[in-house]
């Protein structure tokens, strides 16, 4: 572990502050509720992507979609 682990949260905080984090009322969230803005448009395919990469690369984990399983070699 080194300092780089602190850099990302700090940058995120600075970004959030700099962009204002303005109050967005529920009736102003039409764009945010658009399907294009879903975290995953196709959770099953995204889960399969994680599932495949899981067996090809040495690191894994994090906040993205995945299913259970292997599919390894």
């Amino acid at each position, binding site marked *: 572990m080194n300092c780089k682990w602190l850099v990302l949260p700090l940058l995120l905080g600075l970004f959030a502050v700099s962009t204002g984090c303005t109050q967005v009322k529920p009736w102003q969230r039409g764009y945010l509720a658009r399907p294009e803005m879903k975290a995953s448009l196709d959770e099953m395919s995204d889960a399969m992507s994680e599932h495949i990469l899981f067996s090809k690369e040495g690191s894994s984990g994090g906040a993205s979609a995945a299913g*259970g*399983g292997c599919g390894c070699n």
Partner: protein
Amino acid sequence: MKSKPSKAQNALLALTSTAITLPGAQVLAEETGKSVEPRVIGVRFTNYQEANIDANKRNDPDLAERYDIAVTQVSLNWPLSDKWALNIDFIQDVMSGGSPWYVKPKGQIDLDTGEVTDETPVQVMTSPTLEDTRQDFSFKTTYFHDMGSLGARLGVSEEDDYTSVYGGVDFSFDFNEKQTTVSSGFSFAADRLSPTPEVTPSNRIKRENKGTFSMFAGVSQVINRVSVLQAAMSITQHNGYLSDPYKQVWVRGIPQVENRPTNKTQFVITAGYRYFFPDKNAAIHTNVRLYEDSWNMKSETFEVKWVQSLANNWQIIPSFRYYTQSQADFYAPYYLDVLEDDQNASSDYRLSPFGSISVGAQVIKKIGRWNFTGLVENYSSDKSLGIGSVQVGNPGLVDYLRFTLGFDIEFE
């Protein structure tokens, strides 16, 4: 013939993905008094073929074939009431082909001096006749309340040589007029390995266990009317038999079973940003991920997707992903010196330094209650794609071409 990822970590990922959702969408759904998700049955068929290893990177000219893998997914997302939802997932993998076994130098070794005539590493493959089928069944129940949700998942994955029971719990909590969602959770897995005798050396293990425990925490923040920022971090602990019972290392001319440490701790930080362009009917999704573990492996990932809506309910989603990792501290392509007792050693390409690029495109078409989707993705990896200089690349690095077809049907 496989090495197994942690099922607990996969469960964690699934939990995290559902926990860190878009606050705005959830608010709208709740205000209509309906369940957060519609009733949906989804089916996906995926096939990907790993490219043969180049002739100059393999030991036997006749053994080049790698795995061809077909995956079927069925998912049932079924709200039981305004407050409760049930999700059931089934996955079946059917694999056939050959697998990297160990890496050796291309030249001959002089056992007196320990020198080899050609140090170029070449891959020794198994027979291309390996076959295996894995079936994974899991269910998750979620309770939605006014301020967020609480979910629990339990699953089992079964194949000839590997069984995993996994599960987890997650929750999310909305505040700041539902512009901020905080989520957290944990997951676990209890795995049992029983390697297939026909494809393992005589000194293989007969039965081993390993366990995994993960925790994560994340936050999703509405920035303004068109953008959302999210971040998460997780820590995962693995204990038990973490080696691959089918992999070997070449040690001074003699292949022997690899040996990895019996524990590993992983740290991950991710950040994502989504921005909607009203005049283009499109959104951009970007994600960054930093990883580090106690085997001294580090990795960085950058992903970007462009989600473009078109007329007549069409969507097209081009995507790009870049990944780079350093090697585990005990990794080497092969070992010229005799190993000490209990010395850790592995030549698995997944522990080697490399980088990868994947480029893909997905198309989605909605027709009434039906959603149809098709996806193609090309993945290539190489030592030259990694950040930092890699003197010796592992010859087993993989490329593949993936296709996915599927549909969802929504019910009232």
